[in-house]
């Protein structure tokens, strides 16, 4: 039976929409606390070497300059490496800002000027005289393939790839084969909001820190350990985050600098990075890949070989799952996988939207297209012939897998059956038309999250958890889930997040927030429901006297009997009768934590299939992506409106990755030369045309009680490959080094 308070699965406007469209939503650099000082960071012009001299005196002489922080006057804080490790730090020794004279990478922060105004700090930073001894650096990954090594289990979530069967045998058995190298350059997240921390000094080392982050608790524990502050002394707040895409998973150096300056000067301090400095920390690593595939006469894969070498810094071993997906997505007995790292003089790479899978799927899905052509099969038919109904990598059945529906519904919507296979065979007037496809797979995971649900005497429900909303829709979907769980109208529910004084929630990443916080929200509401029933039983209401929780429901603003919905009490009245100002409850994460210890019974993944049309000018070789259909199987979709937006954004990211986006390193200087928004190309409105998003139905009662798989990453997979495959179909040119810029087509 449906209720007026059923919201799950319904397209719902963002509850934070009004704040965002009127400019009242405040981001980290926008808390204008009293007596604020401004820090401006000076970045290293060299890539490797030592600072030999810093002349701070002329800068300090400027009226209004409060301090110049350098490695010479920043006190030693925590000594051990582990104090600088955040929740998602890879193995190695974390970078410590202003720690010593050594320069490890280009644009490394070397000093920070703190002044009364932003204008003065910026000017003063520009005249700070620093001398360096420069030594030779090495930033070219391709020169270091031979030194590449297999990383250990450095970072949470990294799974060393597992080979199976005998690829050599499978390769020989094949009647058709393909083998090729693929590469893409580094990419930087570049969220619209630049990293910033506003630290409010409240006296006696008590700080309120407004930080740009994807997880307030990660920033807090970093500050606790590095500066020896208690949790009470370092409250971290992040109500709105102007994009993350992974860049906010680790605390960035402006947090260290702002907190350090605040503690040293006993003043409130804001440090904002510049757009150029947004290229001075983590990035998606440049990755070189090799794929070899072989098929039998019927088009079934007899062997898959996928090998990747990625860059990492000299000080940390950043790992991601690049090749592992190739052992899962298609059915094949003989799979050989390899993943290695090579150290160069760059900052440590960092998870960037669909980390690993985005890179791996470029190589695998272009290779699948090449293999389809080599085997004389349609790319969709080829994938269907190698459909995996059982996860051979984990040796587990899928909890659910509706990828077949993605293929069928996506292809139907796109009109794939009208495709003619021959490259260059489709035209729109003078323009070459190309149709390509791809797809991918992403983990459906869940982390422990604590949620508190509190109903007040006015009947307003406040649900809170220290999670984040980087634009993903967390505020909105949690409000929907809580409203439906308690049977309240959505206007009577407020979801609060982004504050370390709230119950602890994991970082927002890995597409796990909806499942983690969503299911915890239901649990907290269930507990609140039990408390409300208990209270109702103290009231003069014979119908509920012996009612069990299973016998009641919360709907349309009431507690009522399932068997007789006329027996009902308005929720507000229950709180009022209690004599308290509110009734509240919190979920327990014990079972979730225990669950994580158990070996998994199912392989739990989201999937997608993408169909892309490009039109290419045959003379100028300009490429326009004119149509995209992205069909996604991600379990239950809580809010089709915000989820669709996430997939639309993923498609834009995929187009960007295929055609535009790269951090261009000039190896002579060891620096990304296009470190600004004019030359680091991402799509603008005119680059984006028709995009269709399909959520195929996929019910999954095993993945988690709500059946959520997460939507943040999966939509990106296969998009760049599908664009590249479409370009091949249009032009006959197979480009394997992304992005496919015009020069590679002419």
């Amino acid at each position, binding site marked *: 039976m449906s209720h007026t308070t059923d919201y799950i699965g319904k397209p719902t*406007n*963002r509850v*934070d*929409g*009004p*704040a*965002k*469209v*009127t*400019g009242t939503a*405040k*981001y980290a*650099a*926008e808390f*204008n606390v009293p007596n604020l000082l401004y820090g401006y960071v*000076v970045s290293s*012009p060299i890539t490797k*070497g030592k600072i030999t001299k810093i002349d701070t005196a*002329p800068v300090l002489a400027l009226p209004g300059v409060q301090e110049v922080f350098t490695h010479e006057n920043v006190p030693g804080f925590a000594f051990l490496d582990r104090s600088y490790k955040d929740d998602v730090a890879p193995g190695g020794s974390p970078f410590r800002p202003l720690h010593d004279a050594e320069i490890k990478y280009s644009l490394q922060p070397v000093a920070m000027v703190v002044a009364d*105004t932003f*204008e*003065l700090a910026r000017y003063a930073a*520009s*005249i700070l*005289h*620093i*001398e*360096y*001894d*420069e030594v030779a650096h090495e930033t070219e990954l391709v020169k270091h393939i031979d030194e590449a090594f297999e990383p250990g289990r450095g970072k949470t979530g990294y799974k060393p790839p597992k080979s199976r069967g005998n690829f050599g045998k499978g390769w020989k058995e094949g009647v058709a084969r393909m083998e090729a190298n693929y590469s893409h350059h580094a990419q930087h997240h*570049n*969220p*619209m*909001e*630049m990293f910033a921390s506003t630290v409010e000094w409240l006296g006696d080392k008590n700080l309120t820190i407004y930080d740009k982050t994807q997880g307030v608790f990660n920033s807090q524990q970093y500050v606790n350990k590095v500066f020896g502050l208690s949790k009470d002394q370092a409250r971290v707040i992040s109500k*709105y*985050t*102007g*994009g*993350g895409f992974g860049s906010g998973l680790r605390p960035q150096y402006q947090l260290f600098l702002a907190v350090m300056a605040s503690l040293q000067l006993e003043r409130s301090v804001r440090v*904002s990075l*510049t*757009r150029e400095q947004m290229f001075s920390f983590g990035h998606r690593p440049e990755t070189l890949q090799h794929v070899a595939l072989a098929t039998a006469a019927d088009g079934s894969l007899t062997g898959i070989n996928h090998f990747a070498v990625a860059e990492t810094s000299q000080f940390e071993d950043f790992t991601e799952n690049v090749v592992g997906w190739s052992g899962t997505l298609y059915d094949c007995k003989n799979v050989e996988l390899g993943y290695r790292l090579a150290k160069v003089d760059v900052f440590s790479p960092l998870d960037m939207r669909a980390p690993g899978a985005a890179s791996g799927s470029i190589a695998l899905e272009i290779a699948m297209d090449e293999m389809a052509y080599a085997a004389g099969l349609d790319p969709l038919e080829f994938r269907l012939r190698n459909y995996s109904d059982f996860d051979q990598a984990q040796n587990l059945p899928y909890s659910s897998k509706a990828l077949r529906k993605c293929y069928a519904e996506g292809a139907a919507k796109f009109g794939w059956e009208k495709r003619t296979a021959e490259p260059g065979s489709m035209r729109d007037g003078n323009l070459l038309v190309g149709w390509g496809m791809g797809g991918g797979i992403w983990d459906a995971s869940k982390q422990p999250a604590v949620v508190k649900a509190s109903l007040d005497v006015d009947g307003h429900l406040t649900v809170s958890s220290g999670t984040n909303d980087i*634009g*993903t829709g967390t505020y909105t979907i949690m409000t929907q889930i809580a409203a439906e769980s308690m049977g309240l109208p959505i206007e009577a529910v407020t979801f609060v997040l982004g504050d370390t004084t709230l119950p602890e929630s994991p970082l927002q990443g890995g597409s796990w927030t909806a499942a983690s916080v969503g299911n915890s929200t239901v649990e907290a509401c269930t507990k609140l429901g039990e408390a409300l029933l208990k209270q109702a039983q103290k009231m003069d209401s014979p119908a509920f006297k012996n009612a069990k929780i299973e016998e009641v429901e919360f709907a349309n603003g009431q507690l009522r009997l399932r068997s007789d919905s006329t027996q009902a009490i308005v929720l507000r009245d229950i709180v009022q009768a209690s004599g308290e100002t509110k009734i509240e409850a919190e979920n327990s994460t014990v079972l979730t934590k225990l669950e994580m210890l158990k070996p998994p019974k199912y392989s739990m993944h989201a999937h997608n299939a993408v169909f892309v049309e490009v039109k290419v000018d045959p003379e100028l070789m300009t490429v326009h992506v004119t149509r995209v259909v992205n069909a996604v199987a991600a379990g239950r979709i809580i809010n089709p*409106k915000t989820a669709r*937006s996430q997939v*639309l*954004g*993923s*498609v834009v990211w995929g187009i960007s990755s295929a055609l535009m986006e790269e951090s261009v390193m000039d190896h002579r200087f060891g620096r990304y030369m296009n470190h*600004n*928004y004019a030359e680091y190309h*991402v799509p*603008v*409105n*005119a*680059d*984006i045309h*028709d995009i269709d998003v399909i959520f195929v139905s996929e019910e999954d009662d095993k993945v988690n009680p709500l059946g959520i798989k997460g939507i943040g990453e999966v939509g990106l997979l296969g998009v760049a490959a599908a664009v590249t495959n479409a370009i091949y179909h249009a032009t006959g040119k197979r480009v394997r080094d992304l992005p496919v810029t015009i020069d590679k087509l002419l």
Partner: protein
Amino acid sequence: MSQVTQASLAPPPVALAPTQAVSLNINGQAHSLQIAPWTTLLDALREYLDLTGTKKGCDHGQCGACTVLVDGKRINSCLSLAVMHEDSHIQTIEGLGTEDKLSPLQQAFIDHDAFQCGYCTPGQICSAQGLINEGKAKTEAEVRELMSGNICRCGAYSNILNAVMEVLNNEGLIIEDKVWSAGDTKPDLAPVEPPKQ
């Protein structure tokens, strides 16, 4: 090993240019500031007037997040000094509508889910308002092109297009009602017609 020197060896100026009084008319309200002459309009809004709805995304006129309306025309406020606008009517996102009284563009952005993180959104909306004021863009292709000075890293472009088209299609209504002006307190301000060419 080689020596590298950062910043000029020449001494900095003995005295910096003094701050000066700057008067600005923003969203129909007069403001008086004492600021360095090289303070950008963007920083004046954000750091001195607490009008943080206008966003800084690059500080180089590359992303459009800082778009405001000056005499009805959209500009990148990061590329303009505050002191240059003493005689201008400046409109920011705070002047287009409030949570209680959203402008049609603001409402359309919510209805079409034309944003995710929300950071480029005020700039997108001010830019769209400027585009409507210009009266040039009529078709989807024209709107896409003329909204291309505003980057949205979340990739909400299709939804932004739909939101702007919806308001454009109701343009007559907007001009008559001026419901998208600054609200009850500043009824006479928005929009200012762009200067005649």
